[in-house]
Each structure stands twice: as structure tokens, then as C-alpha cells.
């Protein structure tokens, strides 16, 4: 009986914790599959509610930054792109202070956000941020050499630059395969970052 009582106590005390930990996983999974603006908007609203209820939860802030960057790719208006990228920067600035944060993922996302800036205005931002993007991805890989998102994004960015310069990029295929192999081993059933497989597809199509 005593054991049972303890279980109930634990259950009661852990309920709120379990609730958030469990609830963020499906949101992250929906986000990883989202393709259209309405889907991203829906997920963003959910994440924002999470983030407001648990401002110190790094994953909520991280995914908010991620969804904002994704929306900047999708939305047509320059003003809107700028708004979302500005908000993403605010979340990213907050992240390093939070408990349990994976800095390798933060630097990867910082790089992707800068890429969003380039995509929104290539002529002005291309020369301005190219170096910084590479620096962020390299920092991410220095912290975690097996971060598949940093691997594929760095490979793609370098390949785009080589294409732009009409130069050969012989190592590209192996880099993509290597990142793809790491993605295969990644656990997608938790709330931890697991996005990025679509970039592999994009890389293979671009060849």
C-alpha cells in the first residue's frame, strides 16, 4: 500500500512536468513534416503558447526560432520576412543562457537564420553574411562533429558558392551521404532537434 501511495504522490507531482515533455514531442514532429505556411503558422502558435507558459524551456525557444526562419523562406513579403527573422534572432540570443541547451544546434540555427537573410535579399546580404554563415556551421560541428543538420547545411552552402563561381566541388556527394547516414541513426521520437532530412533530398536533387 505504501508503494502505491508513493506512486500516486510521484504521479501527482510529476504530472505538470510530464505534460510539457510529452506535449512538445508531437509539436516537434508536426513541425518536422510541415511544408506550407498555414501548417507552420499553426505549429508556431502552439510553440508560442508553450514558450509563454515555460519561458525557460530551451526547446520551445529553439523551435520558435526555427519556425520563424522557415516562415521567412515561405512568406512572399519582404517586410514579413524581416519581422520573422528579427524575432528568430531574439529567441536565438536568449538560448545560450537556458538550461540543457545544445549549443551545436543553436549555432546551426544561427547559420540557417543568416541564410534566411541572404535568401530575402541576396544582393545586399550575400556578400555580407557568407563568411559568418560558414563560421556558424563550423562552430556547430566543432561542438558536435555528428550534427547532421550542420553537416548538410554547410555542404549545401559551400556547394552553392562553388556553383555560383562555376567551380567544381568534388567532395560534395560524400558530404551529403555522410550527413544522410547520421540522419538514419537519429532518434525522431523525442522532442530533440531532428529536422533537416528535406535538405538531403534537396542536395541530391541539385546535383
Amino acid at each position, binding site marked *: 500500500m505504501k508503494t502505491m*501511495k508513493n506512486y500516486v504522490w510521484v504521479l501527482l507531482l510529476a504530472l505538470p512536468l510530464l505534460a510539457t515533455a510529452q506535449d512538445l514531442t508531437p509539436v516537434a514532429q508536426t513541425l518536422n513534416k510541415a511544408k506550407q505556411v498555414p501548417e507552420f503558422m499553426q505549429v508556431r*502558435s*502552439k510553440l*508560442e503558447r508553450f514558450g509563454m*507558459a515555460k519561458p525557460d524551456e530551451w526547446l520551445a525557444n529553439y523551435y520558435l526560432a526555427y519556425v520563424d526562419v522557415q516562415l521567412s523562406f515561405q512568406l512572399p513579403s519582404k517586410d514579413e520576412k524581416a519581422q520573422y527573422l528579427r524575432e528568430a534572432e531574439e529567441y536565438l540570443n536568449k538560448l545560450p543562457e537556458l538550461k540543457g541547451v545544445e549549443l551545436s544546434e543553436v549555432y546551426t540555427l544561427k547559420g540557417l537564420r543568416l541564410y534566411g537573410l541572404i535568401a530575402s535579399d541576396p544582393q545586399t546580404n550575400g556578400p555580407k553574411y*557568407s563568411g559568418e554563415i560558414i563560421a556558424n556551421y563550423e562552430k556547430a560541428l566543432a561542438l558536435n562533429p555528428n550534427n547532421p543538420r550542420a553537416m548538410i547545411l554547410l555542404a549545401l552552402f559551400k556547394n552553392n558558392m562553388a556553383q555560383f*563561381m562555376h567551380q567544381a566541388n568534388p567532395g560534395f556527394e560524400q558530404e551529403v551521404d555522410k550527413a544522410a547516414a547520421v540522419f538514419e541513426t537519429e532518434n525522431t521520437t523525442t522532442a530533440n532537434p531532428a529536422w533537416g532530412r528535406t535538405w538531403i533530398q534537396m542536395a541530391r536533387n541539385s546535383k
Partner: protein
Amino acid sequence: MKDFTLIILFFFAGLCTVFGQQRTVEGKVLNEKSKPMHNANVFIKGSIDGASSDSLGHFSFTTDQAGELTLCVRMMGYAEYIILLMPGKLTNIVVKMHPDNITLDNVVVTAGNFRLKGNGQFGKMSAVDIVTTAGSTGDLYHSLRTLPGAQMVGESGKLYVRGGDSREAQTYIDEMHVLSPYTTTSENVPVRGRYSPFMFEGINFSTGASASEYAQGLSSVLALNTKDASPITKIGFNPSSVGLGGGGTQAFDKGSASVSLNYQNMGPYYSLIPDRLHWVNPYQLFSGSSQLRFNPDPSTVFKTFIGYDRTTFVQQLTALDNPSNVRNLNMKDDNFYLNSTFQKSTGSGYKIFAGAAFSFHNQHIDDALVAADTYRNKEWEVHLKTKVSKRFTDFLRLNVGLENFFRHNNTAYNYTTTAYTDSINHTISAAFATAILNLSSNLHAELSDRLEYTSINHQWNQNPRLALTYNLNGINFSGIVGRYTQLADNKYLLLDRNLLAETCMQYVGGMYYEKKDKIYRIESYYKQYDKLALQEPTVLNSTGYGYSKGVDLFFNDKALFKNLEYMLAYSFCLSKRKYEEYTELSVPQYATTHNATVSLKYNVPALKSIIGITNRFASGRPYHDPAKVGIMNSTTGCYNSVDMSLTYLASKKVIIYASATNLLNRQNVYNYNYTADTAQPGGYHKTPVIDSAPHFFYLGVFITLSGKAAYDVSNF
């Protein structure tokens, strides 16, 4: 007893479920114009219960929260909305949202200014835009002359804006004044900017009615902003047809340090491409600069910039009226600039700025006017400035600030037994305040005032300004009226310290429209000058006056053909003044009625190149022919120059830039100098003022040495 505890526990667990009874919250979200808002995030604060509004603005969700509920509505670009919901009043809720502060702050009053809304590319010219504009020869000021409002004064190189003198255009770096922004050259050789355009992230060019924060500029303000952070370690160098430069940046966790060194020597260039001038020692410029940046946290920036440059040359000159009168003008020019600023945004919404700048300029010329004379001019300025800005409500943002200029000028001229020396020391103290009012979602006003005291003439001046912007279906209409004051030029102040501050009333009205990579702009202005320094035959006074009026047109299109961008600019300007040596109301020598620029940039991906072609046209310049009656009684022929530039990305580490001016080999005449004809009493010889060389060729190779940086020609 144990069982009893367990029962109580189960009771509490059950209670949670009872209190967790689900209630429905329902209503709709409207924007400031009472139109439904899609995708607004509506939720109970502190929980994750909520929903997004649909395309009709409706929302509906259930919550198991008990008692009073705090409903929160969030939407990008809008202020957060919070309302307390009483139990039993959870349906038919109507929420009205209002644009947030960031969105409100992005609305910048547009007339007179090339900085428009946050993303307007028109306002944020980048260094790349400048360099790839043909005819800029990599120089900031040359490139600005392609914009409407700026006048083509080919022999000078300085900025002349909307019929105003070049000294009426002021340059600021990071909000701090720059005393001598131009390089020193010999007569009729165009000056360049001392600072590389690559140093700057934001280049905001105001062609009129500029903000009252900027002092002592009757016509225009060029506000340059350096980068707040430089997160990449890099090193590079660039050999060019005129010299060699190099430098780099070391990035740290919370800051960076940059150094740049540059040496120019025109000797080799002139030996290949001779000009019309006679150089004993060719033009040489050594410059070194450094910038330190420190970002202790994302909302705080400390920046310090130090620059020094030295110019030397010896040029042989022959007097126009006496070919045997030959002298060697020997120029030594030192310039130092130090600028230190601090910016912080606090959590409570205050933006704080403090800065200090020191400019020092020393010029020493032997054989300046005649052989064996010496001219020396030493000038320095300390500028201190502090300001605070805060948005108090959706309706009001306030900016207030204080600043002080301490100025010194010392000049000496020696020729045989004649010695003339004089100096002035004075201060300018000012307080300025601006209220930015959002009168409605499409009507904005900026009301400002600047109170200034100039110690040299013990004068108080007030510069009020009102700017209005109205947005009608995406078209921005704006109007500004403002008063501006500026002390007379030092050469007059040295003679008479009691000269009044010169004044200019500006009236500007314009329209701006931007859609799908196309920008249309039209602006008209009227400027009334008063209290200008006037050198009458026997007396110097402040009774000069004048006016300038005109229209500027601008059109930019990136959408006509893929990879092609073109720009059309036209300025019409009528300017007349009675001031300085113009003792009658007349058109000043630098003013032209028509100025037009057509600039094309074509990006050829297959060749990894950007090709730029610019054609600049200006109607004839007025000049004074002593053989005719009246002053400024004649006009030169038109000015026209076709310039070309090529930017080639040889690899991601090597960029080659080439430019050439005046491809049609036209001889542009800017003015005529007259000398008395000794053989024929009352007759004159006339000599045209023309470019020192028909073309200027620039070839530069920008090489990046470090690993990460790419396509980066900036060492900073």
C-alpha cells in the same frame, strides 16, 4: 490510517478532474481597421490552452483552467493584447489589435531623405551598390552624385546638394561629426572620401530637411554607420593601379579588432597615363585606420574608430598671366580622426547613446600662392553628444539629446616681410528634442526643435521642424518644413567673429512608391537662404541671401529583365544667391539647372561578372566673363560622361574590379579663368578649367587570405 491518506490523495486527484472541467472560450480578432485577423494566437496566459484565429478572425478552444482567466492574443507585428475574462463571460469576445512599437518605429518620415522604411533598398545603400555603380571609381561621394538632388561638380568631387554650397553638406560617422571628410588634392583634381565605403554598413543620404539632431548643415547630411559587430576573423590585401592596401579583423567572443593600412602613389600611374599637370613629386597618400568593437551583450555596443592619413605632393604651377612665373607648390596634409561611441537598449525600452569625436586637420603649403610663400592651416574639433530615446505609448516616441562642439582654427601666411596669423576658438552648444507621433495607422508626424548657442558671435538659434507622412494605398506622401542654421565659413569668421549664423528655411514635399522591385520617387523643394556672409567691396557683413528651388525625380527598376537593374535620376534646380564674392543676386558657379543620370548594372552569371554603365549629364555651368556686363553672365557647354565598371569574381577569394571614366573622350569645361591681355588693353585671355586627365582608370584586385571569409573586400 494509511488507507485514509490514500483516499485523500485519490480525492485530490479527483478534485483536479472536477476543477478541470472543460469550458469553451470563443470570439473573434480584428485589426486596427476592424478587419478580421487570420492566424492570431489566442490563448489562456500561463497555460498552453489556445487556438489560432481562422480567416474570418474567429477562434474557439476549450480550457480546463478554473476561475478568472487571462486571455492573451499575439500576432507578429502587433502589440500583445491581454484581457481578464470573468467566469460566465467566455464567449463572443471581441479583440482589437494595434500595430506594435517595432512596426510603428519602422515608419520613417520620408521626404528629403534617402532612408525610407526599414527594408527600402533605396535608403540602405550598401558598399557593393556603390562600387558596382560605374563612375563611382570606388568612392562614396562620387557614387552619391548619381542620386537625384546631388549636383555634378566634376572638378571638385565634393557633395553639392540642391543648389547649396559643398560646405552646407555635413558627414557623420556613427552619429558623430567628421570635420574633414574629403582628401586633399591639388586645384581642380576631384577630391575623394577619406574613408572606404566598405567600412560602412548603413549609408543614409539626406538631400534636404534633415533631422534636427544633425547640426551645422544647411543643405544635406550624409550619415554613415559602421558595423556593430564583425564576427569573422579575416585578412586581405588589394594591389591597385594607384597603390597598395591591406588589413584584417580579429574576431573575439564579444568583440573584434580591425586594422587597415593603405598607401597610394600616383607616380607609376602617371608614368603610364600622363595627365596635364606637372608633378615634381607625385601625389602620395598614406592612411591607417583601426576599429575596436565590444558587444558585452546583444543590446550593448561600444565602438572606437581611429584614422590617420598624410597626403604629400609637389606640383609645378605656372601663373596664367606670366609664363615665366613658375613655382613648386609643396603640400603636406595631416588628418586624424578619433570616434568613440556607446549604444545600449535597456529592458525598459530606453535607447541610450553617448559619443565623443576628435577631428584634427593640419595643412602646410609652401609656394601656395606665389613662390617662396608659406601657408599653414590648422583646425580641430571635439564633438560630444548624448541622446536618449523611448517609446512611451503607441502614439508617442520621444528623442532628446545634448551636444557640444569645441572648435579651433589657426591660420598663418608668410611671404617675405608680410606675415598674417589669426585664430579662432569657439563652441557650439545645443539641445534637441523630437516627438514622433503616430496620429493614425497611416498618418505620422515628427515635431522637433533644436536650440543652439554659438559662442563666437554670442547668438542663440532655434531650429524647429515639422515632418508629416501620409500613406494612401501604399503611396507615401510627405512634407517637411524646417529651419536650419550654420556658422559662416571659417575664412570669414577669422575676419569678423560677429558674423551671424547663416539660415535656411526648407520646404519639401514628395511622393514615394515602391512595388515589386520598382521604386518611384518625386520630390520638390524650396529653400530660402538668409544672413549669408557677404563680402562687399569695403565691408564684410551678414546681409547675403538667396534661394534654391527645384524638382528631383528617381526611378529604379530591377524587374524589367533578369539580372538587369537600372536607375534614372533627374534633378531640376534653380538657384540664385547674393553671398560671399557674388555681390549681385546670381547663379553660383557650382549650380546647374539640369542634372540627369542613367545607370545600368548587368549581372552576367556565366561570366561571374557585374557590368555597370553610367551616363551622367549636366547642363552648362555659369561663369563670369569680365568682357561682358554683369556678373556670372555666361554659361559653359554641357557636361556629359559615360563611365563603365566591371566587377569580376575570379574565385571566392579574389575579386577584380576595373573602372574607366569618360569613354566618349569628351572634354568637359567646368569654368573659365580670365587674365588681362597685356598686348591689347581691355582684352582678356580665357583658359578653360577642365579635368586634369581625360580619363581615370582604376584596376584593383581584392584578395582574401583567411579561410572563412569569401567575396569580402572589407578588412573591417
